[in-house]
């Protein structure tokens, strides 16, 4: 059969199809010109070779998910100026993305943003949790997927409900790569720019009948960023590579996925600085019956970071199972997970140590959720998650949601949820004797009230609006001993609330023009609880702009040409706690892609086009200037 296929492909290309019907048509070009969508004249082989305009995910029927959910599609990324995962996340109006320096980003939903305090977010890459138990934050410089193979990124602001695992307090970012069957063929990409270069290649092929496999490798380099007046002198240039595979194997009623990556990055700060790691994941989904399905997933992940005389390594094993059952008006999901991490933290730079420096931690969680149709338009979603870690007792996290879908174009929802951020290693076991001692830090707690609308209020326009009121308790403080003496300890001394909103819309103004608008706002009110005084001056609250505005035009004047222009206005960081205030900024990015042929694509893209440099973070220990950056690239598919 392989021979047949090769013969056919060559045959189609030269238009000497062996089959009678195709041979009867004498078309002068390899693929006939199509004035309209009249495809009936084409042979079945020609149909299979016809490049198609992909349907946008956003044109699909509204998802019934009653959360503040924004979806970044593969196409959104391809036609943006994003050249890394954190830059792609700027497309989500419900996130605040701060480029801190060449390799570090602070990313958060609904407040608490900075490298050290954005610790209330769950980030999943193909089901693999990537927040670090060291500080419950995400090291974005370890996450360098090949963006062409990312299927979509779901960004949820808010606790995200019962179904997501630990640490989904203020938001969930779930990055899903494409099924291997969707990446058949070869793709090569290269980019060259003023301060950055990249190269990537992927090859996907059918394997074992129904299965498919892809292999990929990528390489990138980001040069040093200019020094900021408030920031450090250490160099921040960063380069690295990543390689991996994904195989998907469906059989009757089963679907097996196996995937893995290895990577290595170097940072210019000191010789030997950088990170490396790898992971291996297996997933088995079984359709037990038409109304029930079972999924089992396990992974292993290892990462190691060296930076300025500190070494941090982490090994994770994780096993999760989930069962979906439907009966009558009920849609039931239950499951559980078990994760164990073994870490090591060695600091030769200063006196801050973890005690003990090596530790195995366990996290258990179990959940059950029922989506119950009260009437044909009204659903109640009730769930509870139980979570326990090596640092906490059993914590119950209930969640109640109401979804009203009076017509297919309108969804109104409201929710109340309880969420906790369990203590990290730093929260519990950071020590610098005799100044700082370990403590009995407890979970930070949240009760979130949310409501929202998602729908299609007028033709060709989709709109999503959400509002929230979050009540927090036991947020981290740094305090003297009762009575005022040393050592200081991390305590749970802050309480308060945040409120705000997010809204975004997409309007198809003309067949060639689409306009996306987004806005988000957050306000914070916190105080020390009676008997607590925070030496860190409420640093744990992070540094958030009150308002962010986004506009993005996708212009498609002729089929081969696509121009995307994005403008964002990010408010000042001036909450006056713990770090200097910095001004807000307005910046623009653009991508111009020209498809020379079905196999060859050229593009030019630029980030931060309006100013030479600007400052996005007030992190005095890390911040460098973000800078204007222009790059050119090409993608070849065959």
């Amino acid at each position, binding site marked *: 059969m392989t021979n047949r296929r090769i013969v056919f492909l060559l045959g189609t290309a030269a238009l000497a199809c062996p089959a009678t019907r195709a041979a009867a048509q004498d078309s002068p070009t390899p693929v006939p010109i199509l004035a309209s969508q009249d495809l*009936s004249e084409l042979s079945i082989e020609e149909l299979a070779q016809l490049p198609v305009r992909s349907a946008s995910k956003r044109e699909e029927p509204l998802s019934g998910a009653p959360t503040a959910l924004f979806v970044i599609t593969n196409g959104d990324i391809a036609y943006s100026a994003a050249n890394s995962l954190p830059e792609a996340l700027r497309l989500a109006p419900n996130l605040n993305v701060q480029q801190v320096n060449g390799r570090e980003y602070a990313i958060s939903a609904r407040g608490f943003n900075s490298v050290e305090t954005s610790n209330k977010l769950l980030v999943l890459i193909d089901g693999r949790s990537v927040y670090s138990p060291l500080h419950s934050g995400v090291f974005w410089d370890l996450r360098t997927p090949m963006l062409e193979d990312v299927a979509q990124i779901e960004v949820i602001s808010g606790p995200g409900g019962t179904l997501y695992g630990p640490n989904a307090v203020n938001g969930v970012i779930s990055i899903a790569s494409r099924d291997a069957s969707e990446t058949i063929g070869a793709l090569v990409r290269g980019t060259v720019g003023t301060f950055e270069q990249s190269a990537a290649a992927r090859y996907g092929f059918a394997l074992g009948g129904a299965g498919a496999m892809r292999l990929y490798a990528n390489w990138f380099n980001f040069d040093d960023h200019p020094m900021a007046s408030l920031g450090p002198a250490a160099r921040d240039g960063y380069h690295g590579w990543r390689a991996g595979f994904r195989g998907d194997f469906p059989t009757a009623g089963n679907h097996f996925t196996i995937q893995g990556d290895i990577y290595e990055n170097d940072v210019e700060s000191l010789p030997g600085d950088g990170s490396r790691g790898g992971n291996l994941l297996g997933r088995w989904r079984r359709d037990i019956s038409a109304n029930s399905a079972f999924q089992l997933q396990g992974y292993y992940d290892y990462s190691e970071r060296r930076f300025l005389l500190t070494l941090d390594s982490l090994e994770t094993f994780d096993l999760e199972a989930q069962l979906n059952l439907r009966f009558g008006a009920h849609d039931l999901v239950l499951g559980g997970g078990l994760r164990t991490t073994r870490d090591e933290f060695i600091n030769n730079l200063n006196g801050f140590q973890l005690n003990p420096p090596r530790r195995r931690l366990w996290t258990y969680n179990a959940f059950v959720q029922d989506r119950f149709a009260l009437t044909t338009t009204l659903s109640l979603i009730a769930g509870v998650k139980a979570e326990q870690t090596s640092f906490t007792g059993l914590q119950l996290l209930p969640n109640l949601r109401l979804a009203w879908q009076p017509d297919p174009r309108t969804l109104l929802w409201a929710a109340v949820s309880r969420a906790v951020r369990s203590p990290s290693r730093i929260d519990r076991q950071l020590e610098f004797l005799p100044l700082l001692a370990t403590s009995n830090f407890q979970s930070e707690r949240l009760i979130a009230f949310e409501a929202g609308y998602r729908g299609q209020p007028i033709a060709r326009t989709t709109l999503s609006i959400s509002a929230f009121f979050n009540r927090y308790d036991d947020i981290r403080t740094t305090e003297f001993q009762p009575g005022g003496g040393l050592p200081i300890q991390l305590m749970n001394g802050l309480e308060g609330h945040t409120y705000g909103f997010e809204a975004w819309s997409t309007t198809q103004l003309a067949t060639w023009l689409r306009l996306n608008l987004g806005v988000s706002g957050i306000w914070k009110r916190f105080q020390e609880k009676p008997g607590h005084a925070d030496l860190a001056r409420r640093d744990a609250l992070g540094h958030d702009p009150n308002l962010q505005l986004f506009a993005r035009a996708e212009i498609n004047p*002729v089929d081969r040409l696509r121009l995307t222009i994005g403008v964002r206005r990010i408010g000042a960081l001036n909450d006056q706690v713990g770090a200097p205030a910095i001004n807000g900024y307005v910046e623009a990015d653009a991508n111009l892609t020209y498809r020379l042929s079905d196999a060859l694509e050229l593009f030019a893209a630029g980030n931060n086009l309006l100013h030479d440099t600007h400052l996005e973070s007030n992190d005095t220990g890390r911040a460098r200037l973000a800078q204007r950056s222009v790059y050119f690239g090409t993608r070849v598919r065959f």
Partner: protein
Amino acid sequence: MLALALLLGPGPARAQPSEEAVKAAFLPRFARYVTWPGPFLPGPGAPFQLCVIGRDPFARLLDQAAARELIDGHGVVVRRMPSADGSQGCHLAFVQGAAAPDTASLLAALRRRPVLTITDARAGPHRGVIHFVIADGRVRFFIDDAAAAERGLSISSRLLALAVGVRQRR
């Protein structure tokens, strides 16, 4: 594959058809490359029945494509139905539920009947005999020839050669 890429080269600007239009063009065409067991073939002059069960992402596109198809004197008519009830007489069935699990239950209802079931990867992981995927910006498909064999269907090698992957009959 390389030869193909080189030969395609820059061509005249042309409007790309939508994914749905190409899938709609494929659907009635499949009847040409499948053989049904004798008792299930349409009678003389009677059309093949192409059923859309569940969601219909094609609308008019499919009616237009089916209207132009004539296979050994048999036309192709499109029937639409919300569930598998009343799917007797369907030769081909494009199956898509409102959500992924619904697709599975629709497929289960058609199991072991001589119906060429067709599904779309965009709607979820559940697969019929033919499963549309987008590969390299083109509409392609997987073929489960083993499932076709269970249904008494025989798929021509010309169609099998077009699949990105084939689950072989045992």
